């Protein structure tokens, strides 16, 4: 089983990537009209891709494409092969659906296991997963991966903060998978209760969902007495653990035997040389059900081509905090401002709401704060009605986006 420490010859890896890229493209072309049309509109067939570099000939795929082919339009296998269906918030009025075949699940289980293994998780560890509702899918993946490693997994469940803390302490959890927001909330909670980290067996925390700056990491590590590891994932396909940190903690290793990364200039779409910061574009190399070809993540990153001190053959990236799109990351979950606006429109029943969005802290956890300008269309004489409307809207948005939402009404601007 290839893992982070297994030395893999660069040439071997390049070869493997090419093999997988070609078969992915063949399958996509053969089975998915969307991909075939894209090839045809560029006068290409999969045979034109004879080397990894040739991928630049292909057009990009955007998040919006997922929504456009809602629900199963991009599946490369018949529905009866699909064994799991995940939903993630999309860009437009439709969410994006991703499906998994048996083989997909198997592969991702292995990938997650590899990522966990890279940060030292073994079958001796007790792995606790605590992720917000919007990242529940990832929770399942981490569970599977952990199980594959032989670790004792405490699956994700919607427990209260104190219950979670209790489990963390009493079950002698050694590894916690969570988001930054929750980690901070937990820390705050613990210190509020005057609990000391020493009571915990916690050795490491795996942070998912958003890039975390060095300062915050240091701060958290100092407070919790645990190592912090970052994992990078996509909510669409296939899930978490696309990239993981190694013991050297300098950049995230991308599992580029299964996911092919590229860095492009978000404005022009040109591929950028290694080492330049730009938008991360990913191509799945082994996904069966939903192959992504040159998928623009919206995340900004920089590839590091120098070999890593840990000896892992996987290429590293530096995950940058800024974004190439209008997404906000709230509690590790990507939220599209555009889509939020759409939902808002639907919920409020008005054509063009004027609003601002920001990430806010709400009761220790992160939430999406929407400042809505109260205009004529919205204004209602009955405050109650208005409150009711805001309440239902908040609930609806929370459900759709998977993050808590609060709406603040504002006066008309000048």
């Amino acid at each position, binding site marked *: 089983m290839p893992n982070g420490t297994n030395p893999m010859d660069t040439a071997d890896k390049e070869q493997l990537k090419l093999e997988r890229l070609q078969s992915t493209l063949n399958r996509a*072309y*053969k089975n998915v009209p969307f991909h*075939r049309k894209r090839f045809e509109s560029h006068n290409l*067939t999969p045979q034109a891709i004879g080397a990894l570099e040739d991928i630049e000939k292909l057009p990009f795929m955007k998040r919006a494409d997922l929504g456009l082919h809602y629900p199963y339009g991009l599946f490369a296998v018949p529905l009866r092969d699909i064994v799991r269906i995940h939903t993630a918030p999309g860009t437009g009025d439709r969410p994006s659906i991703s499906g998994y075949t048996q083989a997909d699940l198997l592969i991702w289980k292995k990938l997650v296991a590899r990522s966990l293994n890279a940060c030292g998780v073994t079958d001796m560890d007790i792995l606790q997963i605590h992720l917000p509702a919007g990242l529940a899918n990832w929770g399942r993946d981490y569970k599977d991966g952990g199980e594959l490693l032989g670790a004792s997994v405490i699956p994700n469940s919607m427990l209260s903060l104190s219950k979670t803390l209790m489990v963390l302490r009493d079950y002698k959890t050694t590894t916690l998978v969570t988001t930054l927001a929750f980690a901070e909330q937990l820390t705050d909670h613990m210190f509020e209760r005057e609990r000391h980290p020493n009571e915990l067996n916690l050795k490491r925390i795996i942070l998912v969902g958003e890039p975390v700056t060095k300062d915050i990491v240091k701060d958290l590590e100092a407070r919790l007495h645990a190592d912090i590891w970052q994992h990078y994932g996509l909510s669409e396909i296939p899930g978490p653990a696309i990239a993981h940190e190694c013991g050297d903690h300098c950049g995230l290793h991308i599992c580029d035997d299964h996911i092919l990364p590229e860095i492009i200039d978000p404005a022009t779409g040109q591929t950028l040389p290694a080492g330049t910061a730009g938008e991360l574009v990913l191509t799945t190399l082994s996904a069966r059900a939903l192959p992504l070809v040159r998928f623009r993540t919206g995340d900004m990153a920089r590839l590091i081509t120098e070999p890593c001190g840990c000896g892992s053959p996987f290429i590293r990236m530096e995950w940058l905090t800024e974004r190439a799109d209008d997404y906000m990351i709230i509690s590790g979950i990507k939220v599209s401002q555009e889509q939020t606006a759409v939902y808002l429109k639907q919920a409020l029943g008005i054509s063009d709401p004027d609003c601002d969005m920001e990430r806010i802290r709400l009761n220790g956890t992160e939430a999406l704060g929407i400042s809505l300008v109260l205009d004529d269309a919205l204004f209602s004489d009955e405050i109650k009605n208005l409150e009711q409307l805001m309440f239902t809207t908040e609930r609806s948005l929370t459900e759709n986006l998977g993050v808590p939402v609060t709406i603040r009404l504002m006066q008309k601007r000048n």
Partner: protein
Amino acid sequence: MTNQDLRQAQSQQPILDVQGLTKLFGGVKAQDNISFSIEPGIVCGLIGPNGAGKTTLFNMITGIYAPDNGQVIFNGRNTRKMAVHQLVKAGIARTFQHVELFGSMTLLENVLVGMHVRTRCGFWGAVTRFPWVNREEKAAVEKAESLLEFTGLIDDAHKPAGDLPVGRQKTAEIARALASDPLLLLLDEPAAGLNAVETENLGQLIRAVKDRGVTMMLVEHDMSLAMGISDKVIVLDQGRKLAQGTPREIQNDEAVMAAYLGG
């Protein structure tokens, strides 16, 4: 008797009735007691792993091999004593797995050769060029051109067949086979060597041929094509008939899966 009459005469009896066909090669059974029948107007897929005996079966139906046992009843006639060219005249045409067009001849000429059994000019006709010869020739050319039109090859009519891309050659083979006014057309891996688009076009052509009332039997490895256009699929394995049914039934048949994928 014209083809039209023949077609009317056949009513609903199977156009091809294969009964207990057995063929031995050096003591080894290449075909073991195979029986099936094909109703007029359908497309029948014949599939099976390598060495299943599909080509041998084709060769027996077209009269190239004589079966060691069993018989082939074509359109009500026992074909046992018939030579290949007599079978063609009776209405069986075929194409080949590897394109076997007459490469140095033009497409038009290829189709004209396909009309061999429906024309009669011989040596003296050729030398003397009597008026009936010219009339026959003219009619044949017209018919050939209409066939090329039908298959969409008319633009290449005067190009040597060997110079055309494979896809068009495959189509041309079908045109040539159609030239003998077949009642039954046997297609041996028509999609071999074709790309996806060509395969799709081929499927459409086969459907169009079916619309002309030609019954077809097809050996094909491109399963999306075979399953897509067949009304009925027969599966051979190791010289035996393994299963028969609609494509969907076949795809879910355990025995078929085992034959293909192993146990």
